[in-house]
C-alpha cells in the first residue's frame, strides 16, 4: 500500500503522456477532488488544467462525461482535451487535460458582490443543472468548492464531474451538509430534486453559514434531530431574507423540478423589488429629515463663524 509519490506533491514536476507523447509542466496545484488532484499546467506555451488520479476507471468516466457536456450551448463545465497516462517514479498515474478557467470561487464572489447576488447565481446554476438532467444525469456533489465564477463571462461553471451520476442510481459522491439523506429529507438516489436540494442548501449557507460546532454536533445526531434543526435554521434565515422561504420549500420537496424552482425564485424576486428588504441600507422620510437638519445646522454655524469674525464666536469675552 506504500506509494512512492503523493498526488498532491507534484508541483514543479514534468510529466509525459504515455500515449500522446505530449509534455506537461505542472505549475501549481489548483484543487483537490474526491478522485484526483488538479494542477495548472503548461504545454506548448499555453496554460491548461490537468487532473491526475490513480483510479483509471473513474477518471475516464469523468473525462467522457465532461466531453459530452462541453459541446452544449452553455457549457456547464470546462472543455476537455486528451486522456493519457504518465509514469511517475516507476508507477503509473492517469490524467486528463482541460481548459484552464480563470475565476473566483463562490465564497470569494459572494463576499465581494454581496448576498444580493445570490438569487441570480442560483438561477444560473439551476440552468446548468437542468442541462445535465436533460441528458439523464444528476450532478450529485454540488457545493461551493465545485463551482467557479468564470472571470471572462462572469457566469458560474461546474468544475468537478467526478460525482456525476446517471438518473435513478445511487448518488456517487456527496458532502454531508448538502446531502438530502443527511438532513432526513429523502433517499440518496439521483433525481432532479437531489440536485435542487443541494442547490438550496448551498444558497442558504451563502446567506448564513453554519458554524462548525453546530455541524459537528449534527454529525452525531439522528436525521430526525437534523431535520428539526434545519427547519429552525431556515426560520431564522427567512427573517433576514425572503429567499429563505423559497429555499426551504425546495428543501421540503415542494419543488421537484428545476423549472418550478426557477419560477418560484423569479416570482419571489419580483415581489421583493417592491417591498424593501429588512436590514439593507434604505432611506425613509426620517433619514432624509435628519440629513436635512444636519446640513441646515452646519451651514448656520459656518455662516455665524464668517459673519462674526474668525475669533469672536469661540472666544468668551
Amino acid at each position, binding site marked *: *500500500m506504500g506509494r512512492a509519490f503523493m498526488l498532491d506533491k507534484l508541483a514543479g514536476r514534468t510529466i509525459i503522456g504515455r500515449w500522446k507523447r505530449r509534455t506537461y509542466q505542472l505549475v501549481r496545484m489548483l484543487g483537490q477532488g474526491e478522485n484526483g488532484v488538479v494542477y495548472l499546467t503548461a504545454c506548448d506555451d499555453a496554460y491548461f488544467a490537468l487532473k491526475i488520479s490513480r483510479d483509471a*476507471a*473513474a477518471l475516464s468516466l469523468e473525462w*467522457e462525461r465532461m466531453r459530452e457536456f462541453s459541446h452544449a450551448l452553455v457549457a456547464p463545465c470546462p472543455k476537455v482535451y486528451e486522456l493519457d497516462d504518465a509514469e511517475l517514479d516507476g508507477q503509473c498515474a492517469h490524467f486528463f487535460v482541460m481548459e484552464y478557467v480563470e475565476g473566483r470561487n463562490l465564497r470569494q464572489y459572494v463576499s465581494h458582490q454581496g448576498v444580493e447576488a445570490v438569487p441570480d447565481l442560483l438561477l444560473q446554476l439551476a440552468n446548468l443543472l437542468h442541462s445535465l438532467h436533460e441528458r439523464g444525469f444528476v450532478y450529485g456533489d454540488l457545493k461551493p468548492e465545485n463551482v467557479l465564477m468564470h472571470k471572462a463571462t462572469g457566469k458560474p461553471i461546474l468544475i468537478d464531474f467526478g460525482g456525476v451520476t446517471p438518473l435513478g*442510481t445511487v448518488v456517487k459522491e456527496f458532502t454531508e451538509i448538502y446531502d438530502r439523506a443527511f438532513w432526513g429529507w429523502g433517499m440518496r438516489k439521483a433525481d432532479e430534486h437531489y440536485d435542487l436540494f443541494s442547490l438550496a442548501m448551498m444558497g442558504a449557507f451563502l446567506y448564513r453559514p453554519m458554524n462548525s460546532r453546530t455541524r459537528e454536533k449534527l454529525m452525531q*445526531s439522528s436525521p430526525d434531530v437534523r431535520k428539526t434543526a434545519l427547519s429552525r435554521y431556515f426560520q431564522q434565515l427567512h427573517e433576514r431574507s425572503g429567499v429563505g422561504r423559497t429555499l426551504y420549500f425546495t428543501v421540503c420537496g415542494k419543488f421537484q423540478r428545476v423549472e418550478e424552482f426557477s419560477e418560484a425564485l423569479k416570482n419571489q424576486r419580483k415581489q421583493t423589488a417592491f417591498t424593501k428588504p429588512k436590514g439593507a441600507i434604505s432611506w425613509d422620510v426620517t433619514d432624509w429629515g435628519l440629513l436635512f437638519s444636519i446640513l441646515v445646522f452646519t451651514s448656520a454655524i459656518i455662516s455665524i463663524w464668517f459673519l462674526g469674525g474668525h475669533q469672536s464666536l469661540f472666544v468668551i469675552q
Partner: protein
Amino acid sequence: MRGGEVMQQILLITDGCSNEGADPVKVALLAARQGIPVNVIGVLDDGVLGEKGEREVIGIAVAGNGMYRFTKASELSKTVQLMTQHTMEISIQRTMASRWGMNEFQTVDSLPPELRPSVAREMEHAVEYAFLEVCLVIDLSGSMNPKRSYVVEAVRDLVHTLSSRTGEYRLDTIVFPDAGGGIVKHLKVPAIRLADAIGKIDPQGNTPTGPALALAIQTLKSGVPKDIRQDGSRVYAG
C-alpha cells in the same frame, strides 16, 4: 434486468488492539482465501491510534486482501461509504476482467485510454445492480464509547446508501464484546432499526477482534445466495 453479480465484503471498525481469542490477522487471511475481502477502518482519538493498534489495522487489511484507512470519528460515515463503494468496484473489475480480454490481475489501466470509458460505464452499471452482502464488524469496547454516536450515524447512513442502490443487499452486523456474556454477537435486527440497536448496546469486556471476524465469515458463508436468477429469485448453496 441482468442477473447481478454477488459481492461480499467484511468491514471492520475498530480503534485498538485485540486482546482475546484468535489472532485477527490469521482470521483475515482465512477470509481472503474464501474470496471475502476484509477492509478495516481505524477510528482515531485526536489523530492517534498507537503503534500497536495501527500495526494490527494494517495487518488485518493486508492479510484480508482489503483496504485500510485511519479516520477521525467525525469522518467515519464518509469513510465507510467510500470503502464499501471502492471494494465493490474492485470486485467488479476482477470479475469483469475476463470479458475484456484481461486476466484478473490486469485492470482497466492496461487498455488504451479511449477504450476505458465504455468499460468504466459497464462497471458502474454492474456495481449499481450487483447483489451486495456486507458484514459489518464493530468494536464497541470501552475506548470506543466516546465515538459511539458517530458509529451509530455512520451505520444509519450506510443503510441509506445501500437502500438507495438499485441492486439488492444483505447487511449483517457483528458487535463485540457481547453485553450478554458471550464473546461476540450477531445483531439480528432489520436494517432500518440497526443503528438504534447499536446505540442501545452497553458492552463490557475485552476486545475479541479475531472471533468477531470468524463469526463474520461464518455468517457470510451460511445461507448465502450463490447467484441471482434472471427472474430475481436467489439460488442458495448447499
